[in-house]
């Protein structure tokens, strides 16, 4: 669970003002908050190394430092993400669903507006309620796919009826379903399926509620997209960029489990290639990091191989959203917290105190108040000592 940005801001203001050391504006706070968050986040990796090197940990249920640190990093871990290239089509259903057309009248497809109840994530609600037939909705946009290339369809289910309906996602070309994903046991969360296009040309998607009970069962899709998988681009193809790249995995067609792909330096690959025993094969592949978001696999994967990777994403940028209510409208000219336009800290709840002290320390520099720096630094150091000693 994240740390509320307003809670941190109010504490920072309270401590700073208590010491009569000055006021920190929301603009300054936003800058300092991000710096503090980044600093705490980066420190996790060095702490893990330190605890790995020096301590063997303990067997307690909640107090093993390595477990605690892993728990703090857990929200930023993205596992088994495909190596995706360009996003060919994305619809987040935030504004409307006008790019979609119902394929039959056995229910209703409606737009769900962003609201606090859905975490301000709009969606497409597909309801089956009539004629004992399935109800589907098809996108109007055509997406050009090339035969033999790998693609991924990924989507978020943000709401389902208490009795969940089965649903399917079809990739169509010329009114023929070429690739399909079906489930009879839907759940909330992000899902995806990959396929190799068997024809070249324009394709489109249909999301179909395959229930036929007329019992008003529905699913709400938060976002759907089609991406080309190029086996070279790391990240999840969306907003989650790679902060630290973890394991890369290679699963050959027919293989039950993937093989770990180790990182080698570009100069090493030449050495490996000339050795018949160390030369990379699909059983023992390697990769070279070629750019911030690119890797090069050796050997080149076949179209039926599945390459995935784990990575740590960067924490979202914190933002204290506010509105200024003028006195003429009953306000006091002070910034009033606007939850809808704010982004909370993604760090673990236990980091709230550290965040407050770190921001105060930075605020002391901005306000040129050495006393504030000293107090905040002392508090932070004490907290660190309590945690680590």
């Amino acid at each position: 669970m994240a740390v509320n940005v307003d809670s941190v801001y109010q504490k920072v203001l309270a401590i700073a003002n208590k010491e009569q050391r000055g006021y920190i504006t929301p603009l300054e706070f936003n800058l300092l908050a991000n710096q503090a968050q980044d600093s705490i986040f980066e420190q996790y990796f060095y702490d893990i190394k330190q605890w790995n090197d020096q301590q063997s940990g303990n067997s307690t249920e909640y107090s093993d430092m390595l477990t605690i640190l892993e728990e703090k990093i857990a929200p930023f871990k993205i596992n088994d993400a495909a190596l995706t290239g360009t996003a060919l089509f994305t619809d987040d259903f935030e504004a409307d669903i006008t790019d979609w057309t119902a394929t039959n009248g056995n229910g209703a497809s409606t737009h769900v507006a962003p609201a606090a109840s859905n975490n301000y994530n709009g969606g497409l609600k597909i309801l089956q309620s009539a004629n004992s037939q399935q109800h589907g909705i098809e996108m109007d946009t055509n997406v050009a796919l090339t035969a033999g290339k790998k693609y991924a369809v990924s989507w978020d289910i943000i709401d389902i009826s208490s009795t969940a309906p089965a649903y399917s996602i079809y990739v169509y070309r010329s009114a023929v379903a070429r690739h399909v994903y079906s489930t009879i046991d839907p759940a909330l969360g992000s899902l995806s399926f990959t396929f190799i296009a068997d024809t070249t040309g324009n394709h489109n998607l249909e999301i179909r509620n395959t229930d036929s009970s007329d019992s008003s069962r529905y699913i709400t899709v938060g976002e759907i997209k089609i991406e080309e998988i190029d086996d070279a681009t790391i990240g999840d193809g969306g907003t989650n960029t790679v902060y630290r790249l973890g394991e890369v995995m290679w699963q050959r067609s027919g293989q039950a489990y993937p093989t770990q792909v180790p990182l080698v330096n570009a100069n090493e690959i030449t050495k490996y290639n000339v050795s018949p025993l160390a030369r990379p094969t699909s059983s023992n592949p390697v990769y070279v990091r070629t750019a911030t978001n690119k890797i090069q696999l050796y050997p080149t994967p076949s179209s039926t191989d599945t390459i995935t990777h784990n990575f740590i994403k960067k924490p979202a940028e914190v933002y204290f959203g506010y509105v200024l209510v003028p006195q003429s409208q009953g306000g006091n000219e002070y910034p009033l917290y606007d939850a809808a336009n704010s982004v909370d800290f993604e760090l673990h709840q236990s980091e709230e105190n550290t965040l407050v002290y770190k921001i105060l320390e930075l605020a002391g520099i901005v306000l040129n108040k050495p006393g504030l720096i000293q107090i905040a630094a002392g508090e932070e150091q004490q907290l660190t000592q309590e945690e680590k000693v």
Partner: protein
Amino acid sequence: MGLLDNQTQSTYYSGSEHGTYQFTSLQTVIDQFMLAYVGDDKIIKKVKRPEVAYHAQRGLQELSFDTFKCTKSHEIEVPATLTVTLPQDYVNYVKLVAVDASGIHQVLYPTQYSSDPTAPLQTGAIGNENFIDAAGDGDIDLQTESDTWDAYNNGTVDTLPTDGHDTNTYDELIGGRYGIDPQFAQTNGSFYINDLKGRIHFSSNLGGKTVILKYISDSLGTDAEMQVHKFAEEAMYKYIAHAILATKAEVPEYLVARFKKEAFASKRQAKLRLSNIKLEEITQILRGKSKHIKH
């Protein structure tokens, strides 16, 4: 949990791969080595998988040469040229046998008194050699076959041991008249392996006969044969561990020495297990110890 859990008995017997349970694939050996020997709290803190794969393949080669059972054999009908090409993955032979009409093996022995040397074309008298370089490229021209091989190829071996005493049949064979050397006291035939040209030469009495070449490879020819008998699995892990520790910098020497001993011991144990000595069989053989005249 069991290793067979994913395969039912009916699937096994109706399938095409039988007897594979005795082996562990090299891939699995590498995966399991990475799991059990490499990590923060392990003997080897960090090693790249390609290096483990390299040492695993080297280990497989080494064990193939002197520990694993010889499983490769090649049945060939000796052509009129009396020459057969070596198998693609040949490393060395275990034995060559001719097969008689009953399918019984008759062991062939390598000839020690002939060979197939490289023979440059030359002009001029002996002692005044002039090698020929017709193309003028600096490389002297060679005869297609050496005179030695031609002579050996054209010779005949009498395969009818009708004489019960030293007469002309064995006169031609070394030691024939004055006490035959036991290694030549057979008429099965002989062979010569020319490693340079990658072929086996047979004596002329073997022309048209079926011979079997039992040979060893290094087990790296194809993915399917990259496997280790379970008796030797531990030897593989210990070999890889020792190879990595011995080539890594700043590894305490006692650790290298420990794994050297362990690798040696596990290899010896694997060899013992794979030598396939069964009590009943060896008892039966030893029963012959009281028989004075053996053949």
